[in-house]
């Protein structure tokens, strides 16, 4: 069975300002990041849909110890965002000085953009990733 929405297509769309997901014809739920099957019911009858790029921060952390090759990025904020359509996605919150991050960030509304992680010796080249800005 052919993969409906690959990482490459998802990431390419992100760099063009589109956040894609999969809408399940069985249960109606949205899955993103994309997978072979619906995250809710396991169904395979899925349509590619464009999402609103809006959501709320559910949790976050300020990373001070970065992986090898990325030390110059620290400190940076990673957040999990619950999209208006339901799924959660992970990305970086870029709108605030990491020193000012606190529990108050939780529930803040954000919009979604992108940046490209250029990859490292273990990664397969450029990887577009979501970033979050306050709505």
């Amino acid at each position: 069975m052919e993969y409906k929405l690959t990482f490459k297509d998802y990431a390419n769309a992100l760099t063009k300002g589109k956040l894609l997901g999969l809408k399940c014809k069985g249960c109606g739920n949205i899955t993103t990041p994309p997978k072979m099957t619906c995250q809710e019911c396991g169904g395979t009858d899925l349509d590619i849909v464009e999402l609103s790029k809006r959501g709320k921060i559910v949790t976050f952390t300020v990373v001070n110890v970065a992986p090898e090759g990325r030390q110059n990025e620290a400190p940076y904020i990673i957040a999990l965002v619950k999209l208006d359509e339901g799924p959660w996605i992970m990305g970086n919150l870029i709108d605030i000085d990491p020193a000012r991050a606190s529990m108050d960030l939780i529930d803040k509304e954000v919009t979604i953009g992108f940046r490209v992680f250029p990859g490292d010796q273990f990664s397969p080249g450029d990887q577009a990733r979501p970033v979050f800005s306050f709505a």
Partner: protein
Amino acid sequence: MRKVAVVGTGHTPFTFATEKTSIELFSEAAMDAMNEANLKPKDIQALYLGNCLGDFSEGQAMLQSYAANDIGAFHIPATRFEGACASSALAIRDAFIWVASGYYDVVLAGGVERAASMGTPLATRTFSMFTDSHYEYPAGLTFPAIFAMLAHLYAKRYGIALEKLKEQMALVSVQSHYYGMSNPKAQFRKEITVEDVLNGFMVSSPLQLLDCCPFSDGAAAVVLVSEEKAKQITDKPVYITGIGQASSGKLSAQKDYLPRIRAREESAREAYDMAGIGPSDIDVCELHDCFSIASLIAAESLGLFEYGKAGAAWEKGETKIGGRIPINVSGGLKAKGHPIGATGASQVTEIYHQLRGECGERQVEGAKSGLTDTLGGDGVLCTLIMQRGW
């Protein structure tokens, strides 16, 4: 299905960077396990070896085959298990299944890692491989960052002020260091205070240095045999009476269930059901405290405390020897150390000696049933229940 017993264990010291190779470390633990069981390498029918990062730490893949040869168990089938920090727990679970099925009578299972030898930057990068490489790692996700996000989520979900939660988390590390003092194999044998934890370097907010387990080198191994064989070897066999294993999707795919990890609840239920006992029957528990907050999350999902209440249990001393359910009296991953591929086997080794009454100062008197909980990455879970066979 046949009954399966643990009849021997081996455990190297868990340490900062060592000069021994992974195969040398594993062979030391393996020979000790065979000696404890009064078995010879020729008695071993298969080797199941947990190892995650040999490829990166010393350019060594396929070490299971060389390890079997190294210990003189020539030409036996040897298989590597990779389930991040749960690798050797998975190896032991599979060894159980193969002995229980009747296919083998004697299997050696265990694990080894040289995470400390890698140094913090490379270890941090390779531990990040236990996350989704395409959809989550590009954000700079690290292992502490996962549990840091779960800590903030935990505080929010259960309505606990972050400052209060951090004190409770600090007490988890303080207790582990206290018990690490009486474990000669532990990496840290030094008491710490709540203030030490709260004054530590911020690794990934809100986790400070002493909320995090260390990078460690070390190995552990156990011998599993059939009931018939066990009776020939010892009058104090420790039977594995319940096993569970479960998997998860990437962290974001676990969404609203977080900070609970559903796979742990599935795995634990499977193990309890198989053993025919419940959380209140467990006398001693070794759980996966890779971070202080991880202990609270694990203890709740194992059914030992109510959701949102585990921190209070540590505060009240319910997790100490003499308390309701002694947890991580080995020192846990925090003080004993966490050579990831070896951790599951190390936990089983502790429970084995606890049930046999061989733990000296840190002995939980009269322990008859014990449980290990091992977590790999953000969602490989393995639960093993062991009970006295006499």
